[in-house]
């Protein structure tokens, strides 16, 4: 009995040292988050404030979006509305074609991945260059991201070095300048050296680009600010060199005002990467002198999620990644085991909201440990939502047959105390089953466990024959 996640995760276990490294890496980020949480006495109040601000904003979203649009427009920003991914891609392509854009540099945006922006632009002959180092590496290697914040940690330095040598035409010239600025790579794939190579390569891309595209961590309704947080400064480079700036923002990213912004700025990096802050927290309120700024507000299912009683709280999500870092299943199965482009607890839920039949394979990827609920800065009820999705699987035709049969069997047995007691009485027979039978694929428990020994007398029997009479 197996979902695609279970099968992929099983294959992933074949390299225990890879599993261990992945698990250690991301638990390390969880631990950094813990240190941040314990350093702020007001931590739990901050989370509760963030939760309530998001609940308020999301349930008054139409008003706040109107306020945002008005403020942004008054600052010279062009505001567009996209109903879905196709609409979004059309709008962006339109803007780019009107400006004769041949090359776009972009900073990280999960929304652009959700809408398959890159493929769409490339189909229309527009070069798209990811400028976040991890995303750029993956783009060059034609790999998908494995995590929403630290997407390339599963890739080894040797592979990155090989890729750079293969795909960056002036790799050798750049390498010479590294030595000239005092660098001396300990090994030819030293991360500091490779980061320098990427820096020089990306500098050229920034200078050649006609447009910079960013996502938005937050949109501030009161002022029309778009806020973008990065450690690398790539969103700022993308928007300081080319004069055209296009922001892609999911409508749920709106927050009311600067007071709210303080709460979220303080939570974002602490939760996502375990730092007090990202290096850059940039507020874009209007176009540059001689430039143009566009904001594309994207719905793509968000307005209907609002009406979903059990799952609307996913709209609070800030895409920080904390839930993945703490998830014991994500850490041991990694991003590629999931069938949705966002993995981990939030990915299971967002995937089901996107398409419950297509992405149901991820619903098995959860032991319901509830750790995610406790790290989420906005208190999305992640584990409860996974439990709820599980109840839906049967009616979607996606319930695992064996789980269904077992549940039906248990329902029958537990529903009839006489049958249950009889089963208990007979259970020691299991002890006498031949090992071959017990350890075969028919007994999934035997995959990882030595079979339990069934005691001669159940508690029921001990009570009715002894304890009851001793009272």
């Amino acid at each position, binding site marked *: *009995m197996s979902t695609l996640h279970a099968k992929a995760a099983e294959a992933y276990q074949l390299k225990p040292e890879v599993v261990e490294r992945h698990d250690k890496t991301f638990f390390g980020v969880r631990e950094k988050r813990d240190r941040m949480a314990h350093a702020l006495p007001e931590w739990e109040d901050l989370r509760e404030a963030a939760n309530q601000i998001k609940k308020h904003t999301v349930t008054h979203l139409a008003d706040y979006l109107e306020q945002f649009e008005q403020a942004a427009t008054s600052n010279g920003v062009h505001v567009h509305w996209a109903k879905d991914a196709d609409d979004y891609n059309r709008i962006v392509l339109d803007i780019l074609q009107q400006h004769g854009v041949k090359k776009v540099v972009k900073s990280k945006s999960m929304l652009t991945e959700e809408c398959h922006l890159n493929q769409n632009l490339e189909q229309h002959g527009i070069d798209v260059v990811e400028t976040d180092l991890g995303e750029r590496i993956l783009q060059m290697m034609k790999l998908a991201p494995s995590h929403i914040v630290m997407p390339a940690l599963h890739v080894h330095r040797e592979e990155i070095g090989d890729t750079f040598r293969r795909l960056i035409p002036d790799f050798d010239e750049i390498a010479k300048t590294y030595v000239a600025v005092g660098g001396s790579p300990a090994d030819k794939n030293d991360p500091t050296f490779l980061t320098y190579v990427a820096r020089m390569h990306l500098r050229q891309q920034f200078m050649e680009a006609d447009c910079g595209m960013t996502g938005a961590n937050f949109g501030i309704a009161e002022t029309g600010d778009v806020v973008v947080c990065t450690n690398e400064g790539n969103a700022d480079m993308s928007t300081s060199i080319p004069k055209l700036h296009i922001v892609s923002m999911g409508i749920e990213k709106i927050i009311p005002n600067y007071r709210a912004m303080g709460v979220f700025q303080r939570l974002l990096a602490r939760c996502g990467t375990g730092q007090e802050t990202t290096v850059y927290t940039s507020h874009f309120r209007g176009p540059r002198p001689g430039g143009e700024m566009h904001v594309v507000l994207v719905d793509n299912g968000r307005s209907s999620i609002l009406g979903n009683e059990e799952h609307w709280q996913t709209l609070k999500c800030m895409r920080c990644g904390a839930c993945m870092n703490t998830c014991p299943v994500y850490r041991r199965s990694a991003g590629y085991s999931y069938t949705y482009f966002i993995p981990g607890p939030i990915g299971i839920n967002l995937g089901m909201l996107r398409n419950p039949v297509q992405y149901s394979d991820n619903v098995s990827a959860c032991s319901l440990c509830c*750790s995610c609920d406790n790290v989420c800065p906005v208190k999305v009820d992640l584990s409860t939502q996974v439990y709820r999705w599980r109840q839906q699987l049967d009616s979607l035709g996606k319930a695992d047959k064996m789980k269904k049969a077992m549940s039906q069997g248990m329902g029958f047995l537990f529903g009839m*105390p006489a049958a249950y007691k009889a089963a208990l009485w007979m259970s020691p027979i299991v002890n006498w089953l031949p090992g071959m039978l017990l350890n075969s694929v028919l007994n*999934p428990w035997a995959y990882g466990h030595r079979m339990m020994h069934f005691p001669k007398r*159940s508690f029921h029997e001990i009570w009715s024959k002894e*304890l009851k009479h001793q009272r």
Partner: protein
Amino acid sequence: MKIGLFIPCYVDALYPEVGVSTYKLLTSLGLDVYYPEEQTCCGQPMGNAGFEQKAIPLAKKFDQQFRNFDYVVAPSASCAAYVRCFHPGMLKKEQCEAAGKTMDLVEFLHDVLKVTSLPARFPHKVSVHNSCHGVRELGLSSPSERNVPKYNKVIDLLKLVDGIEVVEPERPDECCGFGGMFAIEEQAVSRRMGIDKVKRHIATGAEYVTGPDSSCLMHMQGIAEKEHLPIRFIHIAQILTSNL
């Protein structure tokens, strides 16, 4: 105080000694304890597997069996948590009286009886297994993710035992990987999680792993035996009744 004893299905079948210890412990503390014999299961295995509908009749039956007691006590954090946290959503208000007074043994001893001494003696080093549902649904200990004052009811009780040495593993409340049907459906990851958890318990130098949940202990024991990892498993009820 009349106590209804709730013995989860797998404890009934596989670890009856945990039930016996629980009964003996509660009666030794002067309580009137009764075990309704028509009880079977709280419904959690079906609920977590996605068949909550099949668990509803069981939840109804549970309420009928237990509603007239002052407290319902179970030697299982996850089963008590399922009853308390999920039964109210599954039943109509009038059909749901027992859920609110259902408690795991540890929280009952700690919060209701406020036990301050026990005749128990267990001169061994034990590593505490902080089961997920105990920590995050029942509040048996402070979750490591939160910035809240640190506490651990399981350890508080164990410290009453003569001769015992109590330790916690690294990643003190990371999931062991049982998760009910999860262990069957995602067997590879479940096994990996179990091996990692058992190794962390062993690294403390403890002779035993103990905790409030036989399901976690059962999962880890099965893995430890198959992988030949040397550590033993015992439910906290048994430690607290040692010497009785």
